[in-house]
Structures are given as structure tokens and as C-alpha cells.
């Protein structure tokens, strides 16, 4: 494997039939690279939740991935409305998802908590009216 593999995905906004394409592609690539299954699973869960959040709340966004021997690092950035109260948004069960999204099975208020739970490193920065950037890393043992 090269020292570092870079990948980029664009997540369309408000298209829930395509949400998960980046996660599915990355999962396939990681399996082919021989990344341990548990690490692949953690990356898949964390990134899928991120994709859904980008589609639901930010009208889409960008995902950059770096894969090294030590970790899978993911940066999700958007120019959505931003998050006014990050601790509240990080609490399990809190959701601002609209009803039409909830009817699809989303909006349980577990997106950000799952992203943090399944990441070994997690950081979120957000400015209302500007956008949100989330950095996650899953260690590869």
C-alpha cells in the first residue's frame, strides 16, 4: 500500500437514495486494502452517519479521506446552516430532522453520537451561517 491514499467524495444534498454511496465505496476499498474488519466497520458507521447529516442538514457537502498504515482519517465539511449548540447536538436523542426525513427511519438523534462513538478521534467545529467541519479518525491496529 502507498504511504498515504487520498480519496474525495461529494455528497449531494437532500437525495436520500444516494446517501451511503461514499461509505459503501470506502468500505469496499478498505476491505481490499486488508484493513481489519472491526476498523472497517467503525469507519463505515461513522462515515454513513456523516453522509446522512450532510444530506439532511447541510444540503450536501464534501468528504476527504486519508488512509495510512495507522489510521483512516475523514474530514466532512459543509456550508450549511451550522450548529448553534454543539453539546446539545451531540446528545443522544436530540434531532432537528424534518418529518419527511423521520418517515424514512432517520432523525433518531443518534447521528453525531454514533460518529463520535465509532471514531477513535473526533472533532467538530461549527459556525452558524458559515458551516460545519467534522474530523474523525479510526485507528488501524
Amino acid at each position: 500500500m502507498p504511504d498515504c491514499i487520498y480519496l474525495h467524495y461529494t455528497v449531494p444534498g437532500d437525495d436520500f437514495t444516494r446517501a451511503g454511496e461514499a461509505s459503501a465505496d470506502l468500505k469496499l476499498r478498505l476491505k481490499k486494502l486488508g484493513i481489519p474488519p472491526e476498523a472497517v466497520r467503525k469507519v463505515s458507521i461513522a462515515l454513513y452517519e456523516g453522509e446522512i447529516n450532510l444530506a439532511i442538514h447541510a444540503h450536501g457537502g464534501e468528504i476527504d479521506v486519508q488512509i495510512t498504515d495507522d489510521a483512516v482519517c475523514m474530514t466532512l465539511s459543509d456550508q450549511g446552516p451550522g450548529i448553534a449548540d454543539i453539546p446539545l447536538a451531540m446528545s443522544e436523542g436530540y434531532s432537528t430532522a424534518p418529518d419527511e426525513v423521520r418517515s424514512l427511519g432517520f432523525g433518531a438523534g443518534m447521528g453525531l453520537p454514533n460518529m463520535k462513538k465509532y471514531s477513535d478521534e473526533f472533532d467538530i467545529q461549527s459556525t452558524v451561517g458559515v458551516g460545519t467541519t467534522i474530523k474523525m479518525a479510526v485507528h488501524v491496529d
Partner: protein
Amino acid sequence: MKTVDLAVACGFTHAAGEQAHLVHGIFAGDLLSWAMGRAKEGDAWFTVMGNVNTVAVAALADCACVVLCHGAEWDTIALQKAKEQGVELYCSPLPEFEAAYLAAAKLNLPLPQA
């Protein structure tokens, strides 16, 4: 137990996906993030959400299969996505609890501790 054997034992109807997985446990629920975070690899997932997002979550969470309960029908996009991603889909006329309870019995799963 193989998914195909569980399906025959429980009367589940095959809807999509190659019947090639092994079932180790059960997960039941309709909220996708709950399934994403709590379903375990090899679980048979019982739900009433028959859309494409269920298939995406099942694939990413490595579920053995998904059983759509209460006689609900998979939508066509979900069926297509399942074929592409190798996710096994089934249908059952039973409510979620009854279908999951029946499957747990066939799998000889122990009763959970109170």
C-alpha cells in the same frame, strides 16, 4: 445457521440477494441510526422500513439479512440496491416481535437476562 435455512424454518419469503450468509443473532427496530450503531455483524434485522436506506445500513453494518415484517413490501429501488450490494432481503407477514421471536427460537438463542 444459514440465512436460507432460517428463512425456510420461519416461512420468510426471499426477495433479493444471494442466500449465502450466516446468521448469528437478531436485531429488531426501525430507526436507522439505532440499527447502524447497535446491530451486530451477522444479525438478522427485523423491521418495517422497506426503503433503500435500510439496505444501505444493512450493508454497512454487515447484517446477515433483513426481514421486512407485517406483510410490508420492499420498494423497487431497495430491491435493486440489495442485488448490487449483495444484501439478502426477506418478507414475513408476521409482526416484528413474532418474526424475531420465531427466528430466535430457531437459532436457539438464549433468553436475555432481565
